[in-house]
């Protein structure tokens, strides 16, 4: 009996529709978020993440409506984020039906935002999202959808973010994102060793072996993927069956 490793489909949206891109560019339409949410809820997803990767102020009401539509389809937890700049943004997302929110760019600029969000909603609701890219011998955190380097070491930032109040880390390897070449296990393990909160690995998901690797070698508590699930390249049920057969604790469904 132990905590199951989570498999988390991610819906990257432009606020309204699911979009897909490789390494954060060349976006194209990939479907209706509520329809995908309904499918993953039945197929055995352990949680769902929905992100507004455009995160423009003008589209905020649209994204909140998307969260409402997605939440209505789910009997599993929902994490939402993109453009959370203050406690009011966070409250709006949680009120719309999310259980947890992700913070990225604003937290690097003002780490105290993590403290304020944790004080208001509890640290279990605050997920620090970090987009990291290999630079020389370390990983650097990037912001604004991966377009702006910060000069900040991603592993050190994860550690500090938890001290400020983050209750979970979502670490995305920009080098692997959209490449289907496997998770960055070295990055994920370095993050995992630097914090005592759960760590979600993202970027590079492909065959079931890549999930096994990120749980075994990357020490991840959860693994997130988008297109391999959206495009039905990988079924959730068979992925979990494979992991179970390889002694990874997972919640089997159906």
């Amino acid at each position: 009996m132990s905590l199951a490793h989570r498999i988390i489909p991610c819906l990257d949206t432009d606020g309204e529709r699911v979009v897909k891109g490789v390494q954060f560019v060349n976006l194209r339409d990939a479907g209706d978020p509520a329809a995908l949410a309904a499918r993953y809820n039945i197929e055995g997803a352990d949680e769902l993440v929905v992100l507004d990767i455009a995160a423009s102020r003008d589209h905020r009401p649209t994204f909140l409506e998307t969260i409402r539509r997605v939440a209505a389809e789910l009997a599993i937890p929902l994490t939402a984020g993109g453009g959370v700049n203050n406690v009011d943004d966070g409250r709006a997302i949680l009120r719309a039906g999310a259980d947890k929110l992700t913070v990225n760019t604003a937290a690097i600029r003002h780490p105290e935002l993590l403290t304020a969000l944790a004080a208001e909603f509890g640290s279990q609701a605050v997920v620090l999202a970090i987009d990291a890219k290999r630079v020389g011998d370390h990983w650097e955190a990037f912001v604004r959808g991966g377009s702006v380097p910060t000069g900040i070491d991603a592993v050190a930032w994860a550690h500090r973010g938890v001290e400020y109040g983050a209750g979970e880390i979502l670490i995305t390897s920009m080098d692997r994102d959209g490449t289907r070449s496997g998770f960055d296990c070295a990055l994920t393990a370095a993050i995992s060793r630097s914090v005592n909160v759960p760590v979600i690995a993202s970027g590079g998901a492909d065959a079931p072996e890549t999930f096994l690797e990120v749980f075994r070698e990357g020490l991840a508590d959860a693994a997130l993927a988008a297109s391999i699930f959206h495009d039905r390249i990988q079924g959730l049920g068979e992925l979990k069956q494979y992991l179970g057969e390889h002694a990874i604790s997972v919640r089997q469904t159906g």
Partner: protein
Amino acid sequence: MNIALVEYGAGNLPSVERALARLGLESRRASTPEALGSCDALILPGVGHFGALMRSLGERSLVKPLRDAVASGVPLLGICLGLQAMFAASDEAVGDAGLGLFPQKVSALPPTDRLPHMGWNQLRRVRPSRLLDGVPSDAYFYFAHSYAALDAGEAGVALCDHSASFVAVLERENVFATQFHPEKSGPAGAQVLSNFVRRAGEKQ
């Protein structure tokens, strides 16, 4: 049946409402002493901070009506922080009194495993449980918390292990509670909610 969700300005009411709706059950929100006094079953959902929850209940004058409803036999289901609120006190808010339906206190989980305890876990059943009636023994439930009741005497009917052994399901007469979120726990969670409502119906 008249099911009321205690509304105190926080918590995750909509997801509990939706979970009940999926079972074909209507519920209403109760935020006044009068509304609490006129229902067949009560649900106290909760996320966030023990002290904030108790202060919100206090500001709305809901503490005594809640205790009175329980004393008069109205079935109550506490969820997550709603379970913790049933205890006398919590490490999370030293000095703030809980509802005191149970004399023990809520403790911070030790940091031996990753915290918060976040995700799907299984239960260890130690006594017969009405809420878990018909739920497979290996079912997983969704947890998201850093504090827990380590002991509830005979009322602790199922435990969970993460950092420490803690109470996952609490049952005593008309008082029921889960540390996990049944409204977020897929089909197993739906069964728990359905069991609560069924038991509440039998009390009529």
